[in-house]
């Protein structure tokens, strides 16, 4: 006979389990039994995501309104309960929703969680009307949240000139944001502890400069507007770039161990300058594009090279000078024809030179 085990677990373990469950389901579990009635007031992670969870409101004639109301009520209850429930802090919140131009409501929610010393914030506020984009503008409180360690911002805007102070921030991800060079610079100045920085599908930059002594990982993906990108981060270990900028300057980043250049438009000289100027490089990935026909890859510490040919192009000639190479992987494909040819090989020898 199966018995109820889950109700016997101590509160911290139940909170841990429910941190992986959408908040709407957690609140609904309050009618399971007396044991479960007040549990939801103490779960440290809140997960509100309209796309994934809208089916919970499908009986409502306006599911999105019902979702908004739910988030609002839930946060208000948590706010009130904080006075009499000791372990009711909110450390992590995910809010993915459409934006109905009611910024005051969203501001209230965010101000509340920031006041409660939230540590991780994942926000995606999609514009409602795709013909006439109106983006939600992030309140200043979020950019001055002292306890924040992880921040993800997606599909919104912020005032690029407002003061930023995020002294605990370690990871920052910006997705689908219009971002000017000055705003980026201003933002990074306010993040003195930042280690991971990912920019995805952001537009509006022309000559972005990323300068920091704490950054270990930088990724710039889907970037299309920059003429020149300057990265000045002396402790950077990994850099991924996927975009069509022809001028990427990494000369100050001598500590890079992992480098990925995807859809790269750099010419032969710039490409070689980058690769050969990184004395500690261990792993290098490149997807070849039309401009880089003949080039040289060199590095004393290079252990792994991955190359991928994207478009059906003419011959590519690569010379590799890497005495410590352990693995070389090449993948070529013909996208245009019916013939798909993939070639992948790995070599385990100390000297590899290929024409």
């Amino acid at each position, binding site marked *: 006979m*199966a*018995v*109820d*085990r*889950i*109700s*016997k*677990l*101590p509160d*911290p*373990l139940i909170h*841990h*389990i*429910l*941190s*992986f*469950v*959408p908040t*709407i*389901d957690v*609140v*609904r*579990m*309050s*009618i*399971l*039994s*007396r*044991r*479960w*009635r007040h549990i939801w007031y103490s779960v440290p992670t809140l997960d509100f995501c309209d796309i994934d969870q809208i089916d919970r*409101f499908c*009986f*409502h004639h306006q599911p999105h309104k*019902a979702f908004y*109301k*739910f988030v609002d*009520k*839930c946060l208000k209850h948590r706010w009130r309960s904080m006075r009499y429930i000791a372990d009711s802090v909110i450390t992590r919140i995910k809010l993915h929703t459409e934006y109905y131009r009611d910024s005051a409501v969203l501001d209230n929610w965010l101000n509340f969680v920031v006041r409660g010393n939230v540590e991780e914030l994942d926000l995606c506020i999609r514009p409602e009307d795709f013909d006439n984009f109106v983006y939600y503008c992030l309140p200043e409180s979020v950019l001055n949240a002292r306890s924040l360690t992880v921040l993800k911002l997606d599909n919104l805007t912020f005032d690029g000139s407002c003061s930023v102070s995020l002294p605990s921030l370690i990871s920052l991800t910006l997705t689908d944001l219009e971002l000017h060079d000055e705003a980026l610079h201003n933002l990074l100045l306010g993040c003195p502890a930042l280690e991971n920085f990912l920019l995805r599908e952001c537009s509006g930059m022309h000559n972005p400069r990323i300068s920091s002594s704490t950054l270990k990982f930088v990724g710039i993906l889907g970037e299309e507007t920059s003429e020149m990108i300057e990265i000045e981060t002396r402790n950077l270990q990994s850099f991924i770039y996927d975009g069509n900028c022809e001028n990427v300057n990494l000369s100050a980043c001598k500590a890079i161990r992992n480098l990925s250049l995807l859809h790269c438009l750099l010419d032969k000289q710039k490409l070689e300058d980058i690769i050969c100027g990184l004395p500690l490089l261990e792993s290098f990935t490149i997807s070849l594009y039309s401009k880089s026909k003949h080039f040289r890859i060199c590095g004393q510490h290079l252990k792994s090279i991955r190359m991928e040919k994207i478009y059906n192009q003419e011959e590519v000639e690569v010379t590799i000078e890497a005495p410590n190479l352990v693995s070389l992987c090449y993948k070529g494909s013909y996208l245009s024809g019916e013939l798909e040819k993939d070639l992948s090989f790995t070599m385990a020898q100390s000297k590899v030179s290929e024409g």
Partner: protein
Amino acid sequence: MSSSSTTTTTTRLLMLKASDGVTFEVEEAVATKLGAINNMVEEEGSEDLICLPNVNGKFLGMVLEWCKKHANNNTNSDKGNDEVNKWWDKEFVMDLDQNTLYHLLMAADYLSGTELVDLLTEKVASMIRGKKVEEIRETFKIKSDFLPGQEEEIRKKNSWAFE
């Protein structure tokens, strides 16, 4: 995740004794993946028998099996091991019944095996996610002990969550 600090200590063996008297001989590098054992070794050394009165031999054995796999996978250099660990974790939790899951989780929590606690709590969460309350009640055999009408009262009071 990182076990670089433990690789320097060669194959010193620890003796662990479960609540039912079953003993296990485990490499120190494996057992110290568990925060509680790591603390005991740091404070009291590793010569004596380590008694764990809150864990039964069957579940201690399973916890140690998990630690062993992760310790082995992590010694074979960096990349690719995350994948191996993930695959192995999936296998590890796949067919656990609720009774075992409960005792394992309690054991992992008591021994401060943070990664294992994460794995097991996520497994339980996966059994909850996407289910209606009645389905959750059925899955975990949770009996309602509300007074007549009380459940309806909660639903009404929090109608914003039940509409």
